[in-house]
């Protein structure tokens, strides 16, 4: 199944490369990866979506933790979390199809960014499935260009672990069959 893993890293040169290199080296698959700044200038945040079973995902977390520049790893797969993908979609449109496309965009709450004589560009934010569905519906009109950011994730409520709290938590992970610390 797809696992969504949030990784907080030190904002230093080469850190992205270390994380990606680790996935390649251990033959873990990356489905999508996003990286960006956070509320703290010294911390960057990655969301990695990876195809893995439970055991693999635990090994991925353990391996990513071993990277010296990694501050915190949080597998949010089994927690209530907000997952958002952003897509820019340029779809072919003429006088006949334009209103149908705008109607679809409206239903999906996609923002119209650009209308030209032969195309419409919309921006859609949402879960991966929602984006998939809109793309499916727009496909018959002729998708000219599509770009997606990949998933960014955040736990719901105040449940996101703080980095300092997580460090203190060391030695408390116990998933039933195997007890180990991270």
């Amino acid at each position, binding site marked *: 199944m797809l696992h969504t893993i949030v990784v907080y890293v030190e904002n230093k040169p080469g850190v992205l490369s270390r994380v990606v290199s680790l996935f390649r080296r251990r033959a873990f698959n990356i489905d999508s990866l996003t990286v960006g700044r956070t509320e703290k200038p010294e911390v960057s945040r990655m969301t990695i979506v990876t195809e893995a079973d439970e055991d693999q995902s635990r090994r991925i977390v353990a391996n990513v933790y071993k990277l010296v520049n990694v501050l915190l790893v949080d597998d949010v797969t089994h927690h209530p979390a907000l997952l958002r993908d952003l897509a820019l979609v340029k779809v072919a449109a003429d006088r006949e199809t334009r209103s149908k496309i705008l109607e679809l965009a409206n239903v999906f709450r996609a923002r119209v960014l650009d209308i030209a004589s032969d195309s419409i560009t919309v921006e859609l934010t949402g879960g991966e499935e929602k984006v998939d569905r809109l793309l499916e519906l727009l496909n018959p009109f002729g998708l000219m260009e599509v770009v997606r950011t990949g998933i960014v994730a955040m736990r719901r409520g105040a449940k996101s672990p703080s980095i300092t709290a997580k460090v203190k938590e060391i030695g408390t992970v116990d998933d039933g069959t195997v007890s180990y*610390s991270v």
Partner: protein
Amino acid sequence: MSGKKPIGDDKAASGKPVMTGARILWECLEREGVKTVFGYPGGAILPAYDALQHSSIRHILVRHEQGATHMADGYARATGAVGVAVATSGPGATNMVTGIATAMMDSSPIVCITGQVGSKLLGSDAFQETDITGVTQPITKHNYLVTRADEIAHAVREAMYVAKSGRPGPVLIDITKDAQQSSCEFDWEAAEPKMRGYRPDLSPAKGAYDKALELIRAAKRPVILAGHGISISGAEHEVQAFAEKTCIPVAMTLLGLGHLPASHVLNLGMMGMHGEAWVNKTIQDADLLLAFGMRFDDRVTGTLKTYAPNAKKIHVDIDPAEINKNVKVDVALVGDLRKILLELLPRVDSANHTDWIEHIHSLKGDTAVRDIQGLPDNGHLYAAHVINDLWRETRERETIIVTDVGQHQMWEAQYYKHEQPRSLITSGGLGTMGFALPAAIGAKVARPDAEVWVVVGDGGFQMTMAELATIVQEKLKVNIAIINNGYLGMVRQWQEFFYERNYEATPLLNPNFVKLGEAFGIRSMLIDKRADVVPAVRAAHAHEGPVLIDFKVEQEDTVYPMVAAGAALHEMIRRPNPLVETAEDE
């Protein structure tokens, strides 16, 4: 030296000394306790070499940068302290790759320092520019690209800390030439490692101890699997105390040899591909495996499908990423082995496991008797005889055997009985040919009072034999036993078993090793008779300088027993004519 200036000849307004990056480098290494570095100069590291005159650190000039890394590795394995290797940019740095990968696989703490082209030239394909931090990313525990003098102290202190703490490993620091040349304030205290993302001090969850104790209490047929982590953690005494209190027999990995004395009644000896058949059978029959500082390498498990099918498994390791990597375990205790054993020791029950020990004894049959001294001399010299005689002659002294990789390595593991930890240094995980000679140099430098023997095949010896010059230049008393069978023996053995004896590219036409040794100024001799082995070992011991002995052994001898790659652990290829294995003891 006329150019020698005291440290801190200039002072900044803060009162802190102003120094060049190059001098800060050596000053930090010195304060970290480094006494010796192994290195090779070149353009981009020249400022550092120039500043070496101000340092008390001993520099050992190697003949190839790979040698420098293996020496640092041998130094680290002989003592547990961090070994340091130095090289220039580009080819100097890339030559270190094999040594770094070797240290990574065997969790050996080394720090490699490389020069790099000037920071303004980075990325321009300048002369001798290689992206060595990129190249070594997957084979280092961590690495640093340092482009400013004021980052050097931080990098060195962190690198030393990262290399030796937690699960040790190699760390590389790449320092641009201008960072070495420019000056800045040197502030030792401010450079103290403060690493938010690095937490080597893990300890298990409380519940995990209870689960482990439950399994230990319930076990009727337990076995301890003892690995390299024991000496890394310094847990030799605790492992012995644990084994004795619970009366659980101990099987060793290759790198575990010596961590419990070979003569100890509970020590079963080596397991795995070339372990004793009955040791492997014991593991297959067990109902509980206690893995102490080992990682279930494919060389010790055979095929995982049938590995210890009836055994619960408790895995004690400091690296959480090792848990359930190869073998699914029932309880994992992640943390420092010694601390965990100290926690477990008062809580485990005394036991005797009489039936189990008797069962193991019955598995041995006559194959347990490995003493080959009583065999009639049929005129042939076998590697086993050489190693067994070497053991008999050196067992009473503090001896370090450093092996290369191949048949001789396995014979060493079978016929040399290691009583002390850190008395065997060998490349286990990576299986690096050419490791032995330079690693032995590092071991000798680290422990000058120990008698150091290189046990090396004729193939591997020729990979790094240039370091003979280092031995002579540095006046090191290292003894070299070449187990010379005129083949790449282990490859030939695989060709014999699995490639219909097609000995493609394995016969070696060797130089005259005696003349070669003498050309370097090393006393050298050729031995091809069994009766001459002991006198040769004695002569080597008595000789003040280094000695090279070319042991011409049986050409097509084979390491038995053997678990074929991908076979089950208990399905071993046995010696067809068990001549050597069944001789009477003493």
